[in-house]
C-alpha cells in the first residue's frame, strides 16, 4: 500500500479557538480505495478536523494535500469542487424542497434567464438515486421522508461530483440495520472506484466491519494509526482513553422492593400496541430495540407527552392518568430525554438554574427566587453525581456531554422521583464517561429508585439491566432476566423472530 499516492494527506494541522488548541499538529493520510476510520472521544477534535477538511474552517497552521498537491480550501463549495465531500452528521436539508433540489442545492442546472433545467435535474437525480437503491424519486418532498431516507439524500449529495475523498460523520446514528446494509454497499462501491473514505463513528462493531485503518485522536492530538485487521477493540479504546473498557454483563443484584410502575395493555395508535411490563423499586429495566420500535414513544406516554389510545398505567398498584408532564412529575415519574441538548437542557443557562428548573416555583423567599436554596440543591447533587464544573455559574452548553447528562439526571433526582426513565443515557457521550453514567444508573437502583433505561446499544443494555424488554415494531417481543439473556437471543427478539420459532 505504501507506493500508492494518498488521495488526501494532512500535515501538522493546527486549529486554535480562543483559549483552546482544538487541533494540535494532526497529520494523517487517506489512500485511494480505503476506508479510514477516525476515532476519538467527544471533544477530541474529530469534528473540527473534518470541518477543516470540508472547507468550513481554516487551519491556523499546517497543509492539506489532495493527491500530493498542496491545496487551500476556503468554502465547502471549493472543497467539493476539488473532490472532498463532507456528509454531515446533523442533517442539513431543506425539508420543504424536493429531493432533487436538495441534492443539487447551490448548483442547480441552468437554462437561459437563470431558469432551472428541471428535466436535467430530475434525470440526473434519479440516476444517482438508482445507484443508492432507495424507494423514493427525485420529486419527493424531503420533509415527507423518514430520517433514514433523509440521510440517504445527504449521501446522494456526495455522488453529484466525482469524489476523491468522502467524509462520513456518524452516518449510522439514525439508521436501522437494513439501511446500514445499503449504506455499507454504497461505501464499498465508492471504495471500488478508488475513492478514499473517512469514516467517523463511535460504534466499534461498524468500525471493525468496514474499515481498513483506524486513526485515533485524543485531546486534539494525533495518537496513531492502527491496521484494523491487526488490532482489537481493547487496543483502540486504550488509545482513545488511555485505559481499557469493561463490557461485562450486569452481575450485581440488590434487594428489590414492590412493583413501582406497572403498565397493562398500553397502546398509542400505530406507534405501539398492547405493551405490558412492570418495574420494581431497586430494579433497572432495560428496553432494547431498533430505532422506531416504539421505545421512546412509550417513555413519552408515561411522561404525559402523548395520550395513550388504550391501556392502564399503575403506580404502586393505583391506576393513574397522566395527561401532562406536570401530572407525571407530581406522580413521581421523571424522564431524562433522548435529545439532551434539545429536550433536556436550556443550553444558555447556568448549571444551577438548569438543575432547579422544574421546582423553581417552590424555591422562593418572598416574591423572589431564593438563591441560597437553589445553590444548596446544586451543591448536593454536584457532590452526589460527581459533576465536574468550575462552579454553578458555568453555562451548561460549555460542559462535556457526560457532565451535561449528569445535570439532567440531577435535575430529576432533586424532584425525588420514584420512577426514573432514562432514554439513550450515553448517546453522544465519550467512552470514558459512559461507564461512569452506567455506574450511576446502577447506584440509583441500589438506592431504591425504579429505573427504566432505553438504549440502542447492546453492551449498554446488558451492562446496566436486571431485566431486558425486547421490542420490535411497536410490540414487546420478549422479556429476559440478566441471567438468561444472550446476545443472540436478544438480537433475534428485536429482529422480530419470536421465542418459540427459535426453540
Amino acid at each position, binding site marked *: 500500500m505504501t507506493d500508492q499516492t494518498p488521495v488526501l494527506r494532512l500535515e501538522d494541522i493546527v486549529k486554535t479557538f480562543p483559549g483552546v488548541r482544538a487541533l494540535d499538529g494532526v497529520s494523517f493520510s487517506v489512500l485511494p480505495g480505503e476506508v479510514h476510520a477516525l476515532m476519538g472521544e467527544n471533544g477530541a477534535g474529530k469534528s473540527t478536523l473534518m470541518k477543516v477538511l470540508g472547507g468550513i474552517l481554516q487551519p491556523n497552521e499546517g497543509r492539506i494535500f489532495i493527491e500530493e498537491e498542496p491545496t487551500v480550501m476556503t468554502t465547502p463549495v471549493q472543497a467539493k469542487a476539488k473532490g472532498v465531500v463532507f456528509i454531515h452528521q446533523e442533517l442539513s436539508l431543506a425539508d*420543504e424542497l424536493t429531493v432533487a433540489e436538495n441534492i443539487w*442545492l447551490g448548483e442547480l442546472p441552468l437554462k437561459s434567464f437563470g*431558469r*432551472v433545467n428541471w428535466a436535467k435535474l430530475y434525470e440526473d437525480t434519479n440516476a444517482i438515486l438508482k445507484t443508492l437503491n432507495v424507494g423514493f424519486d427525485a420529486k419527493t418532498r424531503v420533509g415527507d421522508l423518514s430520517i433514514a431516507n433523509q440521510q440517504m439524500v445527504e449521501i446522494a449529495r456526495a455522488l453529484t461530483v466525482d469524489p476523491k475523498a468522502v467524509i462520513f460523520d456518524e452516518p449510522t446514528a439514525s439508521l436501522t440495520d437494513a439501511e446500514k446494509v445499503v449504506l455499507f454497499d454504497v461505501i464499498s462501491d465508492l471504495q471500488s472506484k478508488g475513492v478514499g473514505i473517512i469514516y467517523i463513528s463511535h460504534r466499534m462493531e461498524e468500525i471493525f466491519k468496514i474499515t481498513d485503518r483506524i486513526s485515533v485522536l485524543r485531546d486534539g492530538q494525533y495518537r496513531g494509526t492502527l491496521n484494523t485487521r491487526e488490532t482489537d477493540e481493547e487496543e483502540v479504546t486504550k488509545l482513545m482513553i488511555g485505559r481499557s473498557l469493561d463490557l461485562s454483563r450486569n452481575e450485581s443484584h440488590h434487594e428489590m422492593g414492590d412493583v413501582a410502575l406497572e403498565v397493562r395493555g398500553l397502546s398509542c395508535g400505530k*406507534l405501539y400496541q398492547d405493551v405490558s411490563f412492570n418495574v420494581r423499586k431497586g430494579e433497572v429495566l432495560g428496553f432494547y430495540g431498533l430505532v422506531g420500535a416504539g421505545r421512546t414513544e412509550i417513555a413519552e406516554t408515561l411522561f404525559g407527552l402523548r395520550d395513550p389510545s388504550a391501556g392502564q398505567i399503575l403506580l404502586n398498584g393505583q391506576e393513574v392518568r397522566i395527561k401532562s408532564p406536570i401530572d407525571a412529575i407530581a406522580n413521581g415519574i421523571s424522564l431524562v430525554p433522548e435529545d439532551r441538548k434539545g429536550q433536556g437542557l436550556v443550553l444558555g443557562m447556568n448549571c444551577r438554574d438548569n438543575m432547579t428548573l422544574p421546582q423553581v416555583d417552590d424555591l422562593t423567599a418572598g416574591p423572589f427566587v431564593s438563591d441560597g436554596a437553589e445553590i444548596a440543591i446544586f451543591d448536593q447533587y454536584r457532590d452526589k453525581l460527581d459533576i465536574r464544573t468550575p462552579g454553578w455559574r458555568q453555562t451548561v452548553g460549555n460542559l462535556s456531554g457526560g457532565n451535561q447528562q449528569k445535570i439532567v439526571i440531577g435535575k430529576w433526582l432533586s424532584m425525588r422521583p420514584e420512577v426514573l426513565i432514562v432514554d439513550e443515557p450515553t448517546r453522544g457521550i465519550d467512552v470514558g464517561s459512559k461507564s461512569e453514567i452506567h455506574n450511576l444508573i446502577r447506584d440509583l437502583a441500589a438506592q431504591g429508585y425504579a429505573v427504566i433505561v432505553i438504549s440502542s446499544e447492546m453492551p449498554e443494555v446488558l451492562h446496566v439491566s436486571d431485566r431486558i424488554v425486547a421490542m420490535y415494531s411497536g410490540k414487546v417481543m420478549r422479556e429476559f432476566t440478566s441471567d438468561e439473556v444472550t446476545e443472540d437471543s436478544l438480537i433475534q427478539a428485536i429482529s422480530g423472530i419470536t421465542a418459540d420459532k427459535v426453540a
Partner: protein
Amino acid sequence: MNKDTLLKQGAIWAFIVVELIFFSIAGSYLSVSDSAFMDFDNMLLLLKQSAPIGIIALGMTIIMINGNIDLSVGATYALSAIILLDSMTWPFMQAMGDWAIPLAWVFALLTGTILGAINGLIVWKTGVDAFIVTLGSMLGYRGLVFMYNGEQPTSHLNWTLVDFAEAQFLGLHTATWFLLGAALLLWLLMTKTVHGRNAYAIGNNREAAVNAGIRVGPHFLWNFMLIGFLASLSAVVFYSESGSVNPNDGMLYELWAITAVVLGGTKLTGGYGSIISTLGGVIAIQLLRKGLGHIGADTETVNLVIGLILIAVLFLDRQLNRKGKEELKT
C-alpha cells in the same frame, strides 16, 4: 401535485368562494344599495383596489419565504409617490411636456429600489435581523417623507397620466394589469429560476444553503431591492391616478401586506409559500372589506373581523397540520 399541497394551496381560493357566497346572500337582505355584490363592475373595481397593497404583498412573499420581513414598504411607498409627483413640477421636467412622465416613473422606481438596497445592504453587511433593520428604516424613511414637504400634501395632476391610469384594456383597469403582470413575473421567478428556488432553500434551512455555497447576503440584497421596486411600482400605479400624496399615506401598508401573505399560507419562519396564494390572500382581504361595507358595517368593524379571521385561519391551519392524537404534545 399531491392531495396535500392541493388542499394547502386551494384553501385560500375556497375561502374566497365562501366569502362571495356569504356576501351575495347576506347582501340581498342587508345591503343599503340596490346593486348585487357579485356585480361584474364591482368585481373589476375590487381587483383594481387590491392592486396597491397587492403589488407590495407579492414582494413581501419573497422576503418572507427568505425568512426575512420588510416593515419599511409603507414609507418607501409614500416617498416614491412624492418623488413621482414632485419631479414632474421640476423646471427641466416641465420643459419636456408629456415626456416627463416616463422619466418621473423612472425616478420613483429608482427611489424604491435604492431604499430597498439600503435595507438589503444593512441586513447583509451587519447581519442584524431584518425585522430590526426595517423597523429602523420604516421610521427613517417616514422621516424623509415629512422632511420633503412638512405636513403639506404633495400634489400634481397630469391629465395624460390620469387618462393612462384610468384606462381599461380588455375590461381590466391599468392597476389590475400591473398587479397581474407582477404576479405572473414573480411566480415565474419563484418557481422556474434558480434565484427563486434558492430563496426557498435559504428560508428553509439557512445553514444548509450556506454550506451548499449559496451566497445568502447578495441574495437578500436582490430581494430587498425587488420589494423596494415593487413598493414604488405600487405607488406609481396608484398616484398616477390620484395626483396627491399625504405624508401619512402608506402607513400600515406593511402590516396589510403581511396579513395577506400570511393568509395566503406563507410561513412566517420562511421556506414555504406561494405567489399565487398571496394573490388569493390579497383578494380575500379586499373582498372582506368591500363585502362588509356592502352589508353596512363600518371601518372599525371591518378591521376587527379581518383580525379575527386571520387568527381563526392560522388556528385552523395548525389543526389541519396536526398528526392527530398520536402527536407529541408541546
